[in-house]
């Protein structure tokens, strides 16, 4: 049966807000909601341009609206997600703030759906500590704005940036060939697959030949040699982005396996200092002990299980100017 793996990806975005949205977000920290004039309309939330005509709008035309308003449409969320602004059932609604021409889509904390109707009046309930984000407030029924907890006051400086982090968990099938490859690596074997049409051999493949667009099965598995030559490489100086565990410069090399056309890309090297990495260097496969746990995810070049990298074999370097072109 096909195996599935779960992986979570976090998308950490840092966005600049610009003059209009920045002013709106700054206003939120002051418990003020701003719209922007466009002709005889007041658009909420404000944009730098009129969404209907594309006409540029001026920062000078920002005007305060609300903070109370009227519900124009609503729906009830009985099962909030981790991304929603409230952790208990609530309504999403289109709220026309007093003085606005367009409704603002936002959350209403009304306790129950039976308490809601189109035409109902709402007011903001502000967070005590406001960052200049659209979720610095939610709406509550009634005419009276509230502040939740202690009011930490407006932002000291204009809000110009916004962080947005979403984390999504994905569940993907593992191609059967990946599992066979990983299992074979426990016995210090490097498994590849040979296409029955073109004869090309793929390592770390996904179970098909990308040239002939045919699927490859277990009957196409072949054993690959354990020695090769570095054809190309890069030295990476790690930038400390979220998830980066490396702290010192490290190499990733491309290894052309002996007697084949197979290049293993982005391979780690072992007992080979970055300053000694070079094109033409002869290397041999290095293995983890068969009972060691290995990283399930693999690196950019693919998951090779117990094949943990490549170690200098001690043989003389290969002097071939064409080698450097072999990255595929």
């Amino acid at each position: 049966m096909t195996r599935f793996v779960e992986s979570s990806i976090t998308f950490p975005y840092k966005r600049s807000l610009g003059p209009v949205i920045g002013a709106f977000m700054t206003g939120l920290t002051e418990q003020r909601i701003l719209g922007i004039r466009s002709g005889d309309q007041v658009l909420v939330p404000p944009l730098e341009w009129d969404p209907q005509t594309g006409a540029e709008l001026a920062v000078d035309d920002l005007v305060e609206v609300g903070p109370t308003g009227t519900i124009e449409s609503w729906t009830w969320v009985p099962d909030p997600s981790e991304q929603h602004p409230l952790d208990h059932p609530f309504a999403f609604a289109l709220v026309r703030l007093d003085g606005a021409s367009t409704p603002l889509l936002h959350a209403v904390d009304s306790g129950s759906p039976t308490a809601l109707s189109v035409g109902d009046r709402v007011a903001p309930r502000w967070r005590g500590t406001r960052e200049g984000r659209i979720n610095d407030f939610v709406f509550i029924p009634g005419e009276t704005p509230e502040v939740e907890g202690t009011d930490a006051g407006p932002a000291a400086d204009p809000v110009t940036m916004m962080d947005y982090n979403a984390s999504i968990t994905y569940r993907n099938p593992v191609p059967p060939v990946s599992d066979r490859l990983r299992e074979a690596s426990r016995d210090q074997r490097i498994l590849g697959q040979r296409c029955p049409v073109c004869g090309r051999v793929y390592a770390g493949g996904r179970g098909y030949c990308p040239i002939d667009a045919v699927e490859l099965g277990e009957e196409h598995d072949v054993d690959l040699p354990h020695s090769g030559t570095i054809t190309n490489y890069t030295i990476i100086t790690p930038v400390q982005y979220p998830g980066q565990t490396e702290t010192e410069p490290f190499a990733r090399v491309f290894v052309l396996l002996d007697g084949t056309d197979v290049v293993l890309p982005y391979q780690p090297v072992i007992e080979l200092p970055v300053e000694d990495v070079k094109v033409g260097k002869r290397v041999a496969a290095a293995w983890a002990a068969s009972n060691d746990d290995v990283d399930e995810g693999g690196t950019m070049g693919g998951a090779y299980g117990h094949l943990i990298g490549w170690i200098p074999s001690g043989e003389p370097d290969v002097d071939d100017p064409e080698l450097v072109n072999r990255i595929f």
Partner: protein
Amino acid sequence: MAAGDGPGSERRSERARSAETGATRNGDIAVVGWAQSPMIRRTELSETQLLLRVITDALEPLGLTRADIDFTCLGSCDYITGQAFSFVSNLDAIGAWPPKRDSHVEMDGAWALYEAWLRLQEGDIEIAVVTGSGRSSTGDPALIYPMEMDPFYLAPLGVDPLTFAALQARAVIDAGIADERAMAEVAVRSRRDAIDNPNAQVKGDADVDTLLTGDYVREPLRRHDLPPITDGAAAMVLATGDRARQLRERPAFITGFDHRTECHNPGYRDLADSPSTRIAAAAAGLAGAPVEVAELQAAFTHEEILLRRALGLGDDIAVNRSGGALASNPIMATGLARIGYAADHVFGGGKRALAHSTSGPCLQQNLVCILEGDA
């Protein structure tokens, strides 16, 4: 691309005239075949494997191989796949060696079809393949889609597809265009029509009164107003002029094709209307002659009612005989499948069919495609 004296020049000038007069019949580019993967809740295949099979399934009955394809355009979504540049591995499914002309849209395959249709109008190539593919089961749609929304005002609130649909449904109901019963009737008809469709997940006989006793998922939407979650892919083959007629006895010629978008934030729009659909339909020449069938990408029951109205479709026109997106909803392929079902109508002897696709929250962007057989 030079507009020269080659064999395509006559066709080109004919099209130019069509553009000037607003007439839509250029009669030159046709859908000649299509295929879809099994439409299921969760596939064990990767997106690339889905495409490998479905492209082969589309080509083989026509006697074509991948070597015959002059241009490909693939529609898919990285956020759904959970992998940046996921379309790069999808290229493995087209056999891109020797190197091929290829493009990609981060949209439903219906928009990939639009791009291929434009590309074929250059007149220098004859056959194109387009695909739409998505494995919606990979992640939670309620968490994925908010990331594609306005990053300042919508995404941080986690506004999800069901919420958008529910707010629009209430607007449609309040405008007197639909009510919950009419919406349930759409669900009942879709499920009944889907009984004969092997690729429908949701099908069978249902009763309006029974459906209306169900709980709200997002008031005013109940479970039956919602589409299923579907993994699947579709591939379609296009060919020009005589080549199309060689490949299929009765090709489905694309005689009108247009798509229009509205602004993004639903708060700025009248949710009880779909002006972009209406304009696209006019530009595609829908009013020029009656259509017998329409396939609309209405993933929610109220959307079908709203779209029918925007398109001016009377009760005499069969809408979503396939069961529609309420029967199976392979995100990124749902719209392309609509065009496929409409093409099937023409392949089978029909005269004129309408297909529609949509993208964005609350029917933000809408595409209309008219398919016709030879007289």
